[in-house]
C-alpha cells in the first residue's frame, strides 16, 4: 500500500509540555490499563494473605487460645496479612519495570518531555491503589471470619496513613531492585527477601515481644513493624499495645506519631533512592 495524497496538516503550537498532573495521570492510566490485562498481578498477591485471614488466623486462635489479651487474634492476623499483601503486590508491580525495559515501551517514555521521576511515580500511583484495594479485601475476609474491628474516623486515618506510606516504601524498594537487575528471573529470586522474610519478624503473626530480644530489636528497626502496629492501633487495638511494645512510652498518641514518622522517613528515603537509581539505570 503506497502513501496516498495527504491533506494539509492541522497546525499545532510548537512549544508545549504536558502539565505535571496530566502527565502523571497519563502514566498511571497506562500502567492501570496494562495491569488490568494481567489479572494474575491483581489476584496472585492476594492468595497467601487471603488464606491467612480466612483459614490460618481462626485456626490458630482456636488451637492456641489466641493472644490471651483483649486483642482479637483473627483481626490481629488479618492486619498482619496486609504486611504480606502489600509487599507481594509491590513486587509484582515492580516486575513491570523489567518487562517495560525488555519489551521496549520504556524507551518511548524516556523520550517524552516529562521528568523521568514521573515514570516511577506514575507506576507507584497504581501500586498504591491496587495495594489499598487488596488490603480492604483482606480486612473484609478477616471480618467475615469473625474478626473484630474498631472503626473510627481517626482510627481509619491512622490505618490509611500507615498502609499508604508503607506501600510507598515497599514499591520504591521493589522498583530500586528492579532497576538494578537485568533479568526477570533475578528479580523473582529476590522476592522472598523483599516480600516474605520481613513478614516473619515484624509482628504479623505474633507480638514482637515474644521473640528473643535480638530479633525484637531488629524488628523495631523495620518499617513493616511500625506500619503494622499503627494499622492495628487504627482499627484493631485502640490501646496501642503494639506501639507500646516498640516505644515503651506512656502516651500512645506520641508513640503513634513516632511510628508514623519512621514509616514516612523510610518511604521518603527509598522514594528518592528509587528515582535516582531508575534515572541512572535508564540513561547510559
Amino acid at each position, binding site marked *: 500500500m503506497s*502513501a496516498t495524497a495527504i491533506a494539509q496538516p492541522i497546525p*499545532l503550537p510548537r512549544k508545549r509540555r504536558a502539565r505535571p498532573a496530566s502527565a502523571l495521570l497519563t502514566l498511571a492510566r497506562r500502567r492501570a490499563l496494562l495491569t488490568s490485562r494481567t489479572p494474575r498481578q491483581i489476584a496472585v498477591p492476594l492468595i497467601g494473605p487471603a488464606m491467612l485471614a480466612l483459614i490460618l488466623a481462626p485456626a490458630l486462635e482456636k488451637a492456641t487460645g489466641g493472644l490471651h489479651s483483649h486483642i482479637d487474634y483473627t483481626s490481629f492476623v488479618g492486619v498482619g496479612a496486609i504486611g504480606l499483601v502489600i509487599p507481594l503486590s509491590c513486587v509484582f508491580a515492580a516486575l513491570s519495570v523489567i518487562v517495560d525495559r525488555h519489551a521496549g*515501551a520504556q524507551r518511548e517514555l524516556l523520550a517524552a518531555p516529562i521528568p523521568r521521576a514521573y515514570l516511577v511515580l506514575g507506576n507507584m500511583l497504581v501500586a498504591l491503589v491496587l495495594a489499598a484495594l487488596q488490603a480492604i479485601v483482606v480486612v473484609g475476609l478477616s471480618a467475615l471470619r469473625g474478626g473484630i474491628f474498631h472503626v473510627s474516623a481517626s482510627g481509619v486515618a491512622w490505618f490509611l496513613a500507615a498502609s499508604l506510606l508503607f506501600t510507598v516504601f515497599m514499591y520504591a524498594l521493589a522498583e530500586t531492585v528492579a532497576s538494578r537487575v537485568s533479568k526477570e528471573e533475578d528479580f523473582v529470586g529476590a522476592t522472598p527477601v523483599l516480600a516474605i522474610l520481613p513478614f516473619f519478624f515484624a509482628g504479623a503473626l505474633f507480638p514482637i515481644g515474644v521473640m528473643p530480644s535480638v530479633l525484637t530489636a531488629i524488628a523495631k528497626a523495620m518499617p513493616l513493624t511500625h506500619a503494622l502496629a499503627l494499622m492495628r492501633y487504627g482499627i484493631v487495638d485502640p490501646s496501642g499495645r503494639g506501639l507500646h511494645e516498640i516505644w515503651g512510652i506512656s502516651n500512645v498518641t506520641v508513640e503513634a506519631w513516632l511510628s508514623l514518622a519512621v514509616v514516612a522517613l523510610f518511604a521518603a528515603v527509598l522514594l528518592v533512592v528509587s528515582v535516582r537509581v531508575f534515572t541512572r539505570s535508564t*540513561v547510559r
Partner: protein
Amino acid sequence: MHMIEVRGLRKTYPGGVEAVRSLDFDVEAGEVFGLLGPNGAGKSTTIGMLTTTVLPTAGSARLAGYDVARQPLQARGVSSVVFQEQVLDGSLSGRQNIELHARLWGIDPVIACRRTRELVSSLGIEELIDRKVESYSGGQRRRLEIARALVSAPQVLFLDEPTVGLDPRIRHELLDVIAGLRRREEVTILITTHYLDEAERLADRVAIMHAGELVALGPPSALLERIGSEILEFRTHGDPTAAVRALRERGAAGEDAFAVGARVTVPLHGRAASEALAVIDGERIGASELQVRPPNLDDVYIQLTGAPVAEAA
C-alpha cells in the same frame, strides 16, 4: 538557526569503548539527513545522545535551539523518535498507543484525535487502529510507530533504522511513506540506516559514519562524484594489491583505485574501460565477474573505510 546542531559530540562507554568520537554536523530545518554506516558505527548512540537517552561524554548538541544536556525536557518536547527496536505496548490498541504519546507531549485531546485520524488514514492503518498491537505485522507496527511519532507534530523526527528486519516489499512501501512525510509535514528528519538505497533515495545529505567518526558528509550525488560516474569492478584470483599496482603503472587506474578482499574497484573518471581490460589481459591478472557500472554509496564507503557497509556490520 540550524534545527540540529552537533559540536564535538563524543561518547565513551565504561570500559573505554569509544562509540562516538567528536561528531560535528548541522541539519537545516526541513532537511532529511542520513547517517549511513554499519552496525557498531555509532549511529544509534548518536541518536541516543540527541534524544537524551544516552549521556554524552563530551561536546554539545541542540535541537531547535535547545541544548539536549541542559534543556532536556524542551529538547524532547520538539522531537519524536522511532527507535530501531519496536517500542509499543502490545496489549494496548494502536489508538491507545498514539493517545499516550499525544498526552505526554501535551497535545490537546480534540486536536490529537483529529490528527490521529489523519495520520492513520495517510499511513494505511485505519482498519487496524483499534486492534491490539500484538496482532499487527512488523510493517504495520512500524507505520503505527511513525504515526505515533508524528501526532505531536515534532520539529525533529529521528528514524533509527526504520526498515531493519522488514521484508523487501514492506521496506519499499515504508520508504514511500517516509519520502511522503517531508511533502506533508514541516519536519526535519534524521534517519540512520545501513541500507544504501534508503540513504540515496531519501536523504538530502548523507553523513557516512565509521568507527564512531564521520568520514564523509554531503549530498549523495556529491559523495558519488568522488568516485566518478562509472567504475570497473572485478574479482581477482591473484594478488589484488598487485593488480591495482599494475593498473596504476599502466595508466589504466588512478590513485583512487582500491581493492578490498579479492574485489578490485577502478573509478574510470572518463577513461575507457577497454584500457583497463587490456592491462588485465596483458598482465594476465586472473579476473572474473567483470562489470562496468555506476558507483553507489557502498563504493564510497569502501573507498573511505576499506570495507563494505554490509561486511563491516
